[in-house]
């Protein structure tokens, strides 16, 4: 076995990638938005994939991208979407002493792991040129299907467990009759017949057409000239973004070309919205 040399190209690659990866990992400690963290960690995973390839583990590098970045981290992102993509977390610590313990543990692990590896008199690296003679994938497969055939089979149990577990925690058997369009209509009619005035049989009225920027926030007008409240989606009303009917002066200005009259800032909700966007 001959001693392996590490090319300077690999060194350059390492010194570019490693700081980036550490920064990405630090996002795990300091970033506030969950989704940012997930993307940062996914970045670390890609970095790892590159490092695997640099370490003559081509197959693993590709698998890392496919399995980790492609599947595992995306699963994380899915779940983050599920429980609220814009969830942020206050970084204020509530448990007394936890910061100190965490610092102690973190620094301790760092120092110890560093000390263990740097103090060890590691033998000169052999390199995988020989082992990878028939390509890396073939080499890996040989070991996988000979020495580690039993653990390999055993992982099957693991994957089945995962599938069964995920299903039993999330899959719901339908109990009772299916509630389709037909049943929905029948139920609505029944409720209307019972005198529940809040129930509409028909569609809601469309919003108004006196649009200046977004017709969805403008109520429709009934025959008496009064706004129809139900014509605006509740979401807008909760956000306080619905508009009021234009006043007589505004109506008088309606003929003017857009932009020459008053600013749309007169519309209360719009101002808020813009402010939010600027943030």
């Amino acid at each position, binding site marked *: 076995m001959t001693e392996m040399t590490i090319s300077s190209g690999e060194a350059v690659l390492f010194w570019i990638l490693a700081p980036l990866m550490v920064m990405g990992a630090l996002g795990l400690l300091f970033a506030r938005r969950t989704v940012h963290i997930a993307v940062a960690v996914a970045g670390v995973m890609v970095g790892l994939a590159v490092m695997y390839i640099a370490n003559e583990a081509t197959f693993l590098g590709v698998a890392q991208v496919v399995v980790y970045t492609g599947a595992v981290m995306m699963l994380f992102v899915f779940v983050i979407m599920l429980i609220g993509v814009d969830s942020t977390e206050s970084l204020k610590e509530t*448990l007394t002493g*936890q910061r100190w*313990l*965490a610092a*102690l*543990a973190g620094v*301790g*692990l760092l120092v*110890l792991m560093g*000390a*263990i590896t740097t*103090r060890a008199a590691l033998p000169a690296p052999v390199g995988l040129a020989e082992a990878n003679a028939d390509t890396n994938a073939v080499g890996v497969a040989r070991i996988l299907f000979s020495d580690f055939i039993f653990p390999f089979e055993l992982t099957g149990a693991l994957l089945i467990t995962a599938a069964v577990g995920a299903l039993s925690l999330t899959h719901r058997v339908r109990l009772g009759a299916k509630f389709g369009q037909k049943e929905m209509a029948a139920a609505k009619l029944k409720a209307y017949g019972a005198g529940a005035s809040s129930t509409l049989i028909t569609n809601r009225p469309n919003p108004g057409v006196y649009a200046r920027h977004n017709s969805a926030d403008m109520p429709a007008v009934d025959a008496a000239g009064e706004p129809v409240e139900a014509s605006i989606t509740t979401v807008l009303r909760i956000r306080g973004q619905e508009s009021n009917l234009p006043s007589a002066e505004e109506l008088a200005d309606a003929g003017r070309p857009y932009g020459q009259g008053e600013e749309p800032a007169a519309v209360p909700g719009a101002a808020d919205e813009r402010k939010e966007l600027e943030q």
Partner: protein
Amino acid sequence: MSIDLAAILIVAVPLASAGVLLLLGRRSDGWGHWLGVLASAASAVMAFVILFGLLGRGAEDRAVDVHLFSWIPAGELDVDAGFLVDPLSATFLLLITFVGTLIHVYAVAYMEHDDDRRRFFAYLNLFIAAMLILVLADSFALLFVGWEGVGLASYLLIGFWNQRTEYAVAAKKAFVMNRVGDMGLIIAMGAMFASIGSVDFETVFAAAPELSEGWATAIGIALLIGACGKSAQFPLQAWLGDAMAGPTPVSALIHAATMVTAGVYLVVRSGAIFEASPTAQLLVVIVGAITLVFGAIVGCAKDDIKKALAASTMSQIGYMMLAAGLGPIGYAFAIFHLLTHGFFKAGMFLGAGSVMHGMNDEVNMRGFGGLSRFMKVTWITFGLGWLAIIGFPGLSGFWSKDKIIEAAFVGEGWQPWVFGMVALLAAGLTAFYMSRLFFMTFHGKARWNDGKNEAPGPEQHPHESPLLMTVPMIVLAVGSLGLGAFLAFGDRFFHWLEPVTGHAEHHDPVIPIPVIMGATVVLMLIGVLLAWRQYWASSVPLMPPTGSVLTRAARRDLYQDSVNEAVFARPGTHTVRTLTYADTAVVDGAVNGLGAGAVGLGERLRKLQNGHVRSYSAAMSVGVVLVLVIVLVARI
């Protein structure tokens, strides 16, 4: 019947009976108690079979090892379960089964009105079986089984009337204190295993003389702790008084005749180990001497008849311990006193039970007095017990106690003087407090409400107990009267025990024997006389004389009694107070403190278990860091 079979049956019969009674439950309520009596009696018959079997052999062949089965064959540690029948265990077999059977009979009447009488008998049988295993065991491991068994049974029996919380608490206290002693025994076994590699008697005692003194002392002290726990010796004596909460037959059986003497048995049985370590031996003597005096002083001040008897038991076992610690010269005396004590103390406990039976379960002696007219049999039997325990010449106690006092005076240096004088003095104290007890109960003026006097409390109609109760008392009284003389005659008992205890060279005490004997008798008479003056010839105040408001007349009486007060009662009470204080503060304090410390520590640690998973992971990772530091500290 062979000795082997008898030895197995003697344990199996009461055990089976206990099992039957517990399993059948209420269905056996009607006849259960008689089954219990029968089982115990059958054991007693077996005990006699064994006795005669042994007597039929030569002195050298009087040790039969009954192999039961191979119990724990763990590698080098090979523990066989087997019984050792020899004169020592046979003596105990007789005591346990004979006295036990009498107490069973007594309990049939005593517990008549208890709904759970059958269960009581099941426990009694269980106790008998466990106690028999204890004395029959041929290894420390099996002895430990019996040891735990009697602990459990006594726990069940003390707490039998567990409707009342304080009784259950007393039961628990006994259990916990015993556990401390048990630890001593476990440690002793561990030490034996480490140093000798075995825990069966034969190997251990054969190897004991070659043991280094350090090991022997360690094992000896650990065994002593075990003995102290079980025999209520200083400093683990506190539970015995509280244990009087149990029904009186229990007190007679467990806390007078059998279980509390297990410690003495252990020390005598392990004689070979103690002989290898003079330090441990000296400690045994010291413990015995302290308890002897302690019990006697406490006995002087207790007004509760059963507690006074319990204090006396403690003190008498102190005598036995003292003797056992003297080495081969004392073993036989210790066992002899144990045997006679078993008879007269059990008799007196039964007598106390009979008094309570006649007095509506009253236990305060200040509320007794003049009962001799109403319960003749009880009076006479109790009187014989009293004479025996104070060492009245000719009665059982005289023979056995005198020997111990003499033996205590044997030796060189300061020890014979100190221990001899302590033993001698205690004889006087014993005479005082036992006479006090006897006179306060049976003589003097009646201080209970007989409908005519002005004594407080409900009206009492003292009456003699039924035959089932008096007959056992009579039998035991006969034992108190003649057993000592019978066994001491021609040193017959000591020759009988010789194969076990070895032959002791006869040394002369530092004071001539007749002088010791004379001094003992004189001290005894002084004690009786003082007690007679204070508790028979003069009236006994209904309230304890210290710290209470008394009438002028009572005060004058006090003045009259001030000598007695000053000599005995006052220092007595003060000492008792100090001792009880020391007891509560130090021993209870240590036990409670350990408990409180554990609870306090627990409460602290509990805070760590705050339910936050992040705290858990923090604990884990800090743990990992610390572990790595510990592991690597030498390397990096």
